[in-house]
């Protein structure tokens, strides 16, 4: 059997030893040793969908951006309404290049001490360079390398976390605030990357082992690896940067139009505004869609979307086996004309043709705790 080999100098994250002691298999990811699985991806995936999973996402970049004019400065680099973002409110946004291509996707939250931004681990140093280059000198970018980041996700996640951090249950989806766990100051947002209700906890790295242990002592919570994190986010229809999003994709082609706030669409003033507005009106050439793949064999990233003549017309950017649906699913960029739910498309992987059907995303219904949502 063939196995991929990577030879990069890897760094250890604060919970490295903690993961190994719990039987994790460690793999290289984003320049770090990361836990890919503990007991098995399918078991961990299904546990998270029914109970609560603890994910170590300390590889992600946590930034605190502050100073006079920080709202205007950040609005010049991304299409979100930052000025209208109230304290303790969180928003999804995209760092864009001049052509409207996506440099990264991120979460931004207003805190009393500045804008707290979480970016992808694999591109965090590029992001910081880009921000430093474009933000005025008066604006401070604090890369909080002494902070770890844990996510607790699943229908029982908030009940478990609220036992340690009372008050967390009052947060709605995309709200955040300062709390304490066992006397340690933490920042908790009600958000995540699984489609489930849950929280993300920013905490001092030196307290990470203690707090991870406390969280896993809750009967609902088990540690979950990166493997299940990927299958969970795929079922939730959430794109992964570097795979489903890249500088060659735009917010329109990536079907992330919700990240373009109304005021910003109308006023402009973010990179690629003209192209994005034109693309929004005319429709993109290719669009990100979900696919149900026939049969049982997953079609992976790199698989082609072909027309009846066998010519490539698109490509698969993520694909795998859905543990919840017990079937292969994928995300792909396909011609917009074919991007209709129920439309059949042809895929090609290692010389083999496979039929797929355009699916509505998410594949598995989101269960966020939204403010004002019907129970």
């Amino acid at each position, binding site marked *: 059997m063939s196995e991929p080999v990577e030879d990069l100098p890897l760094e250890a994250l604060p919970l490295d030893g903690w993961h190994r002691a719990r039987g994790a298999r460690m793999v290289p990811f984003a320049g770090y040793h990361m836990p890919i699985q503990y007991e*098995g991806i399918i078991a961990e995936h299904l546990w998270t969908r029914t109970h609560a999973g603890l994910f170590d996402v300390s590889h992600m970049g946590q930034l605190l951006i502050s100073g006079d004019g920080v709202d205007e400065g950040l609005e010049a680099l991304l299409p979100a309404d930052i000025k209208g973002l109230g304290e303790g409110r969180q928003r999804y946004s995209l760092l864009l290049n001049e052509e409207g291509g996506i440099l990264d996707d991120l979460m931004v939250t207003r805190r009393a001490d500045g804008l707290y931004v979480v970016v992808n681990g694999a591109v965090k140093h590029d992001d910081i360079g880009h921000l430093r280059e474009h933000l005025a000198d008066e604006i401070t970018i604090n890369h909080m390398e002494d902070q770890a980041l844990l996510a607790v996700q699943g229908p029982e996640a908030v009940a478990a976390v609220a036992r340690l951090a009372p008050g967390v249950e009052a947060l709605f989806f995309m709200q955040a605030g300062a709390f304490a766990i066992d006397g340690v100051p933490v920042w908790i947002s009600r958000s995540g990357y699984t489609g489930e209700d849950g929280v993300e906890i920013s905490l001092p790295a030196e307290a990470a082992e203690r707090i991870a242990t406390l969280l896993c002592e809750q009967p609902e919570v088990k540690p979950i690896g990166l493997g299940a994190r990927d299958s969970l986010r795929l079922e939730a229809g959430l794109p992964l940067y570097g795979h489903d999003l890249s500088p060659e994709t735009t917010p329109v082609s990536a079907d992330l139009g919700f990240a373009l706030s109304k005021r910003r669409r109308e006023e402009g003033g973010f990179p690629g505004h003209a192209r994005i507005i034109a693309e929004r009106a005319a429709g993109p050439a290719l669009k990100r869609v979900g696919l149900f793949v026939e049969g*049982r*064999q997953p079609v992976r990233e790199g698989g082609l979307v072909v027309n009846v003549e066998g010519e490539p017309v698109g490509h698969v950017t993520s694909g795998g*086996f859905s*543990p919840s649906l017990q079937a292969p699913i994928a995300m792909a960029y396909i011609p917009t004309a074919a991007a209709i739910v129920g439309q059949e498309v042809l895929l090609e992987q290692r010389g083999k043709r496979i039929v797929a059907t355009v699916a509505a995303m998410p594949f598995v219904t989101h269960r966020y705790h939204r403010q004002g949502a019907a129970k």
Partner: protein
Amino acid sequence: MTYYFTRDHEWISVNATIEDAVATVGITDYAQAQLGDIVFVEVPPVGTIVEKGKEAAVVESVKAASDVYAPVSGEVVEANRALEGEPALVNTAPETDGWFFRLRLTNIAELHGLMDGEAYKTYVAGL
């Protein structure tokens, strides 16, 4: 039955009749543990001529696809149809019910140089 093992973590069990040697091929317990949850196995159809060292089967876990190379040359005389409906047999019974295919060997000499069970155990312990 005599068991042989490869450095690529396949096992081969061969019946004793040298004139008409049929080998059963699968992947080892070590291999299935490394792959994790297996969700799909593609085995070669009966009649396929496979060549030692060439791709013969595909095994897909939740995370990734891996090729299984033919450890010896021969003609496929039987494929394990049970894996179509229950690929997880490779996880639960890799060295028994989770076998992949049976080959009529074309060159018995190819078995020389493969590891026996003890040698394979030592090999895996050193990984």
